[in-house]
């Protein structure tokens, strides 16, 4: 039921995924960058075009399916993950992608998101996180920082924000990753990894809303600051960052701390925490860096483990039931139990 069973079509190109619909995001929106990377990478995923389905909810990001020339469903607010579950269970051979945002996927649709993650259907979630409500014109979102001044919070928001990777891990997600809209190559590789993962993949994409929350991720994208603020994760590699890779994450007991190898001569490369995608403790530590000014923001695959895939289990039950009871016969069923003849 995973991608191995899907047909491949090597002739696909970017243009095969472009629709005739005019793109209606604001000029300069980070969504353009994500769309461009998706259209670039999807032809190479080894899936026949007709087997892709994009499902979205409501919000700026949720317009995405209209611009991808595949099967698409622009549904209702928050419910994309639930609709996608039905799409996938009806036909497990499809490559199903949910495009959602911080409001759609974590606020109104938070419930469906966590339940999809724990069930582990082979569905890919692209969560565009711009930490603001764009389509309704600028209210704070569940990932906005505490004290955020917006139209609906003129004195500052009172909500503590969600930490998306931590939320996903808490919901038993089997694949959690993060990337940034401006980091095109990294995004491509994350989309590929998400696609490859058998089970639900949760890919958070930091996305700049240049109208209502411009610069939310500027420290992660500006040339001058990004090296000190972004930790690029690689499996089995030490967690180093900084212009010269001079900084790193060190564990003091179970407490993480940033160390500077150039300044702190007592510590060396062997004292830097090595990333292991399969280690839940490391994943939890990394997710705790979100919204924490003392740490860089990790991007890359935070966590990826194998676990039973829901639809595989479902279809195994079908086989098992037929083996046990024979293929269902409606006439037998209708005539089951105590019956009698009236002449």
């Amino acid at each position, binding site marked *: 039921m995973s991608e191995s069973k899907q047909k491949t079509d090597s002739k696909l190109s970017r243009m095969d995924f472009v629709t005739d619909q005019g793109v209606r995001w604001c000029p300069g929106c980070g969504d353009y960058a994500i769309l461009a990377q998706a259209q670039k990478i999807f032809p190479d995923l080894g899936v026949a075009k007709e087997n892709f389905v994009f499902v979205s909810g409501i919000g700026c990001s949720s317009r995405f399916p209209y611009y991808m020339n595949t099967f698409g469903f622009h549904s209702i607010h928050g419910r994309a993950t639930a609709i996608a579950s039905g799409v996938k269970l009806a036909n497990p051979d499809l490559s199903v992608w949910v495009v959602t945002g911080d409001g759609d996927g974590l606020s109104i649709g938070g419930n*469906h998101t966590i339940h999809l993650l724990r069930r582990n259907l082979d569905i890919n979630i692209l969560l565009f996180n711009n930490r603001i409500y764009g389509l309704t014109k600028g209210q704070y979102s569940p990932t906005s920082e505490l004290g955020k001044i917006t139209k609906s919070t003129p004195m500052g928001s009172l909500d503590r924000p969600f930490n998306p990777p931590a939320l996903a891990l808490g919901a038993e997600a089997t694949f959690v990753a993060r990337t940034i809209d401006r980091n095109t190559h990294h995004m491509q590789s994350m989309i590929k990894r998400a696609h490859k993962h058998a089970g639900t993949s949760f890919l958070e994409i930091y996305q700049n809303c240049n109208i209502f929350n411009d610069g939310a991720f500027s420290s992660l994208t500006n040339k001058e600051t990004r090296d000190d603020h972004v930790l690029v994760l690689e499996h089995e590699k030490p967690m180093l960052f900084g212009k010269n890779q001079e900084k790193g994450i060190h564990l003091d007991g179970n407490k993480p701390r940033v160390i500077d190898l150039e300044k702190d001569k007592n510590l060396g490369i062997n004292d830097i925490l090595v990333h292991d995608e399969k280690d839940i403790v490391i994943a939890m530590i990394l997710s705790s860096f979100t919204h924490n000014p003392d740490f860089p923001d990790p991007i890359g695959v935070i966590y990826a483990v194998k676990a039973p895939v829901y639809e595989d289990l479902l279809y195994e039950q079908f086989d098992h039931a037929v083996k046990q009871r024979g293929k269902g016969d409606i006439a037998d069923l209708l005539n089951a139990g105590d019956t009698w003849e009236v002449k």
Partner: protein
Amino acid sequence: MGKSLKNVDDVVIRFAGDSGDGMQLTGTRFTETTAIFGNDLSTLPDYPAEIRAPAGSLAGVSVFQLHFSSKNIHTPGDNPDVLVAMNPAALKVHLGDLMPGGAIIANANTFTPKNLQLAGYESNPLEDGSLEGVYEIYAIEMTKMVTDACADMSLSSKLVERTKNMFALGMLYWMYNRTLDSTLAWLRKKFESKPEIVEANSRALKTGYNFGETTEIFTTRYKVGKASLPPGKYRNINGNYAISLGLLAAAQKGNIPLFYGGYPITPASDILHTLAAFRHFGVKTFQAEDEIAGIASAIGASFSGNLGITASSGPGIALKTEALGLAVMTELPLVIVNVQRGGPSTGLPTKTEQSDLFQAVLGRNGDTPMPVVAPKSPGDCFYAAYEACMIAIKYMTPVFVLSDGYLANGSEPWKIPELKDLKNFKVSFQKDLSENENFMPYLRDPETLARGWAIPGTSNFEHRIGGLEKEDITGNVSYDSANHQRMTDLRFAKIARIANEFPPSNIFGNKSGELLIITWGGTYGTGRSAAERCQRENLKVSQLHLRWINPLPKDLGSIIKKFKHVLIPEQNMGQLRMLIRNEFLVDAVGLNQVRGRPIRAGSIVEKVKEILG
């Protein structure tokens, strides 16, 4: 002393006891035996919402009423002839309904000072003479007799005591001349792994039967002859099971996989349970995280080419409302079952009502037409569900099935259909395009106005749908004002065309007269019984039963015109009446009761007489 045998046509028995006394089970067993014997029958289970209400309390009384007859019957009966009261609370709650002269069969061992006090009795009504002369009283030491019968067994006294319902059942089998075979066989199967439980219950059943035979307090046995049902093979069936079978039969007939997405809720959960056991048919049941995800997953499955189904009850349907609008806008087949219960809000979870009619017909944002079909009896639930699937696919639309708690849990003899005799319908997914032709998702069939169904995985049919208004034919997003008018008109016209499928309306009685009783859903039976009684009294009363509430049958207006009065009995405050008054400008009168149980035929007859003066 010899016992006499008396022929009767018609008997209503009410089994009442504590919710732990096994009344539902006792009633169901009597029903099965009676059905196999060949009586016509109709049942009404009625139980508290609490799984175990405090023992002996008035709130904890659980009831199963059974009406069986040598004639064709349509209701579970108004007033019981026999009340089986397993404790004082059961007697207290149900005595008022018992027919004058009716029989009370009570478990005397439970009429203890504590239980009498819990039921609010100051003295023991079985002994204080208060019932004498009004009813036949049979105070029987059921608990003691089952205890004696199992004295040599090693079972705990608690387990032995639980078999007292089987004693009561055995006694009634004797009284109505029934055999124990089917119940004994059922006990053996049900408790296969617990032979001592089978033994104790079997002993209790036989002890009850033998007690009837030997005791001197019973002088008469009753014989209720076989009913003359249409020839065929029969089984007993309740509404929720019939709906489940109807959905499966449609999926089999249409050769389309069935997908059920839902969330547990009383009284609809049994549909989920039943379908979940059909894995060997490839039925996909998905217990979602909430009602919304239930319907959303079903819509997703329909988009992918399965037949999407969801079922719930009023509060759950309220949560699904936005998704219903999405199904209307995207024009995907979907069947939504509402097993109605008392509202508003959480209301009366285990009691029946018909108060979600507006919710089904009108309850959405925007002008959002929705076909609504309502089964009229437990067995008809099969056909209503089947028809809903057929219409949903043929017209590419969500379809509501409005059942209710009474139909869901009530049962009747059901003539088993053969798959080949069910109406044919075809599921066809779009597959072929001529060269240079593009798939137009909102191009319609000229006859049904249904759009084409193209499913993911089909090359060259890639397209996008969604909740935004669609441009006619292309399905592109469109905010154009003229297009919105056209699409709204098309959505209404499509649903109106479903009425082309209906046969001419069937009127019970003369085609014109003084008064027409219009019924829908679960009030069919009482309306029919009431019309029969009125006609026997030479009143010019006919009955018309509405199977589809939306669209209404095309001949309804002309039928209504042939009657001076229109009476619409409903278990709500007048919802169908408002629709009918609005549609036909007729001064229809309502009989509106929301008491958590079906309206009684007698109440309708009284209302008819009041109108006719």
